[in-house]
């Protein structure tokens, strides 16, 4: 944040002490939501194509498909992008509807951890299958 020593800045210190006002993270949130949305578009179209192609596939067929590097890489990218996008959306919904500050913070942190943990578990599963179970 640029400093303007020549200007008197009222409320600055009490605002900082109480942790009120903009956290200046809004632009990053918005930008990441858009970037993951752009990434989600081709990845999700490919996911739907893959699901249609693999419907009713046997275990061997599925593992053979998943072990191909391109499929494994695209799937990992999809998990990262989708879980990030979902986490940002969940945060906005929480911020809008949960008015209790403590509960809101707890829920946002919980969602963050949940989506990271789930993404880690799915990525591990993809790698496990790709590297031969």
């Amino acid at each position: 944040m640029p400093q303007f020593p020549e200007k008197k800045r009222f409320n600055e210190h009490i605002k900082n002490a109480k942790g009120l006002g903009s956290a200046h993270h809004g632009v990053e949130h918005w930008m990441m939501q858009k970037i993951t949305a752009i990434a989600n578009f081709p990845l999700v179209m490919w996911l739907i194509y893959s699901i249609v192609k693999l419907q009713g596939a046997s275990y061997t067929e599925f593992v053979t498909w998943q072990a191909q590097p391109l499929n494994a890489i695209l799937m990992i990218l999809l998990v990262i992008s989708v879980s990030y996008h979902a986490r940002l959306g969940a945060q906005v919904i929480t911020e809008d509807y949960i008015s209790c500050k403590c509960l809101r913070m707890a829920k946002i942190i919980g969602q963050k951890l949940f989506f990271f943990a789930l993404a880690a578990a799915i990525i591990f599963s993809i790698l496990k299958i790709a590297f031969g179970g």
Partner: protein
Amino acid sequence: MSTPETTQKRPLSPHLQVYRLPLTALMSISHRATGAALAIGTLLVLSFFLAAAAGEETYDIAMRCATSTLGQITLFLWSAALYFHMCNGIRHMIWDTGRLLEKGTAMKANYVVIAAAIILTASTWYCALNY
């Protein structure tokens, strides 16, 4: 004097309980609703990998769930929500550039989004059922 002098209808503030939401507003809340549903749904679809990584038996159970009637209905709703969220998301991107924001064009874009979502869902399921 308890009866009001004017019988003319006063305008009501657009509060949710007394206001019929226009289509654009319904689309807006549907975008959020489908987004929330997809956060669960997409990760549910992707947790198929957890089942596959656990071994052949769990894979077979997951595949049987996915191809069951309930599984197919869930997948259908997931795909419909996904296509709606995707098409409306593209419109959000266009909105971010300052276009399509006028009342008339926004209303027309509603129908384009709904039609595109229906066409995409229908053609996906046509392919899936005839593959």
